């Protein structure tokens, strides 16, 4: 029931209702079904891409830089989020902080797929920029943790690990019995 006629499937024998204009010129000595109109000016040469041309290198470079600077572009958004989260500890703030913390960690873990996308001359620099960008995001998250008081920066946070002073002498007694 379905029409199985493809582009070149036994098309010479059957009636062709699709004309492939692309290869018409290159197959010069083949039978051309249509002649070109008289007023046609051939500008196809202008639009042809050269494989491995200089423009292509620039585009690759551009794309790599886009990927490398991706994390840094997220920075301002993170700042906005951390300002929204506030300094107290509530469920909303915890969610935001955890999210801010987890995203750069997750992308750092998946560095391989990103590094595959970065190619070109200054790929080392771009890779470094990407890593630094993620670390900067982490830094913002840590700063948020610090300002919420979650980091053990004060002496009182280490109080539980202080050992009691050991005694070397033993003493006993009280009011004398007699």
């Amino acid at each position: 029931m379905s029409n199985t006629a493809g582009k070149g499937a036994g098309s010479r024998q059957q009636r062709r209702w699709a004309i492939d204009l692309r290869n018409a010129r290159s197959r010069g000595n083949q039978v051309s079904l249509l002649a070109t109109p008289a007023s046609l000016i051939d500008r196809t040469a202008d639009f042809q891409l050269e494989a491995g041309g200089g423009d292509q290198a620039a585009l690759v470079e551009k794309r790599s830089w886009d990927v490398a600077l991706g994390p840094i572009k997220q920075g301002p958004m993170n700042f906005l989020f951390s300002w929204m989260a506030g300094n107290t500890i509530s469920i909303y703030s915890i969610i935001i902080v955890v999210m801010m913390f987890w995203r750069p960690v997750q992308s750092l873990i998946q560095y391989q797929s990103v590094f595959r996308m970065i190619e070109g001359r200054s790929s080392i620099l771009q890779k470094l920029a990407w890593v630094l960008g993620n670390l900067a995001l982490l830094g913002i998250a840590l700063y948020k943790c610090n300002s919420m008081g979650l980091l053990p920066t004060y002496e009182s946070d280490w109080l539980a690990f202080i050992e009691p002073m050991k005694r070397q002498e033993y003493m006993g007694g009280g009011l004398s019995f007699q």
Partner: protein
Amino acid sequence: METEFAKKSIEKILDIHGESVVVIVGNRVFSWQSQSGQLNWEIVLLNKEKQLINGYYVEEDKLVLLVDGERIYGIQIQNGAVRYRKELNEGVVDCSLHSGILHVTTEKEYRKFTVGDGGALDATPLPSTRCYLSKSAQIACLESDGVRLLTRHLPLSDIDSMHSLRCGALFLLETEASGNWVLDAAAATIVEAGRSLVVGVEIEENCVPLKLVEKDGAVEVRPVGGLSSALPDARYRLPKDAGRVAMFVPVITRNTIPLLIVWTDAKQLLVLNTDGAVLWRRDEALAEITAAEVFDPPPKEDIEAEEALLSGPQGLFSSMMLRASSQLHMLVELLDVERLLRVETGRPALHRDRFGLRKVILVAARPNILMALDSADGSVIWRQQVADAAPMSEDGSLHLWMLRSASHQRLTPVAALLAATKGNAKKSVVVLFNPLDGTELDRHILEQGALQAILAPIANSHHLRPLVVLDNNRGVHVFPLLEYSHVLSSANRLFVLAGQRETAVLSGYRLRNDAGTLKGELTWQAALGNDMQGSKLLSLVTIPANDIAYSQGRVLGDRSVLYKYLNPHLVAACVDTADGLTVSLLDAVTGEMLYSTGHKRARPPCHLTVSENSFVYSFWNDRFRRTELVTVEMYMFTRNGSDVNAWSWPRPSAIERQAYIWPDVIASMAFTTTHRGITYKDLMIATQAGLLVEIPRAFIDARRPLNPQPIHREEGLLPYAPELPLPYDMVVNYHNYIERTTHIYCTPAGLESVALVFATGLDLFFTRAYPSKMFDMLKEDFDPKMIAAVLSAFLIITVVTKRLAAEKLLKRAWK
């Protein structure tokens, strides 16, 4: 003050028809309503206290007659007015009220008075200075070779004392050589009564002297001699641990004695009946407890106990035998065979319960009584009278230590009692016994008398901590004796502190290993009092061994730390100088004084108690007439070094102190403790009014600020207010007032959130305190079965409906 009055004893009680009760204490006479306890009247006779000879109630004139050493008083029963007061110019020897006339014998004369107005009737001279009157006013005079009655002279040698038997014409004569004799002055006969106790009772209008004969727990009451044989012999059984009978009162109906009320020298009151049963029994020695130790009963035989048993170094065969016997014990418990075998006592086996809340309380009471109480219901597990022991002469105390607890399988627990010997108060006796059943294990007499004693810090291989006693000659004794070498090895780390009450001098001794013998060496002395005027050392407390601080500092509002100054060698002393009180804090190993303060116009009682880095003391401020409570806390700003000896121990950087006003008079104070120290420590205060109050630490904090800043609120400090509140929901004992509390013992329980409190005094009180609420126990309405049932129901329903839904979808797809 109340405490001085409390030491007097009641000399006479008169029951006025069950409506009111007249009580004579010293030189005061009280009358209370019998039903309501309301005081009717109270009078003071004269400032000088004379020994009361006797007191009578005269029905017709509604008078109370009192005869003391020199006077006769007639007091109206209605309003306590003294109707008359007669001075007798000689000392009164004896008196008797008979047929409306008061008969009095003095050293020279025999006089009679009318009771209505004290008028003298007549006076006759007496032949000797010691003449006594019987109840029916017969005179008998004691002479060197016998007894002289009005008409006759009865010879008897070596009479020590004579007194009337309060019945008819009977007297009791006590001789050292030949026991007791009963004199019937009317019939002029003397009958021998042996060495038994004698009581005179009235049976059918006759006065019969009865004697009590004790033999192997069987007690018999018989008439003396052949004076009356109308009474059948009455036999009773006295329990073995009741001691010897000191006084007895037969309850007589017709001419039988169905009940016998007995007071023993072990301070027990028993009522015995002729079937050999004890109707009821009271241990009055519990009112005179001087030392108490609370410990865990032995754990049940179970897998954990078995593992603990086998954890030590053992050979192959012995560990196999241990495992086999442990399994056998467990089988026996499973089948509850023990319950069948233990028919006699009817008490459930003494085992630890699941949370370690059931304890055995071992107490030592005056004069020489040891008892163990079950903390579940306060019943007495065993009682024992320690032979040849007496309270220490200094303060009448006995001392207890637990050398080995009952937590170790197969090792009997050992406790030690230190007391003075009965004959000679200068010598001491140390008795080692098993605190689970009172059997005596060992006993030693210290010729020099004990000065102080400490428990050795390190237990030997059998988990026993020897008791090290320093005697008055600086000799050192170790009990049990076999542990001498064990203590010798650690001798140079042991220090003993002794404080003299009368001179307020503290002495620190060091134990020295002197070529194989232990010797005590005096290292420091501190004279805390004022030499010019007399000073007395009132109380001395050291940090208790079970006082553990879980957190080493306090977190302040700005998240910095104020470290607690935790010195395990601290000792606090309170000295009563002539013009006030001095409280000092010393390090007992080096003798260095860390803190000292004086309170002018402060009076005892001074109660001191220590916990972690703070100590709290209370005194009576005479200027403002109120009780004040002072908290002193010691802190360090930095912590460095962890393993130092006492001489390099840091000093406190800051000592904070604050005083508060307590609205009552304090009888005793103590801090609660727990095993790990995580729970807060509340202060238990027993007031003189009978309340036991639990005060949270926050109220008596020394850092409560006068002008609170936000940083203080951050820390959680209440603003300072001088009065301590006494809200009634902090009173632990509700309306069960406990009278005359002398000491509060606080012990940890198996659960961290529970602290056990035991208050002794005239009344005993045992309770659990929850200073941080009950954070480690599920609520009672937590129903695990219900939750499990609901969960499993949900699971089943989920699986079933999933299956059903899949089937339905499939069916629909096939349509």
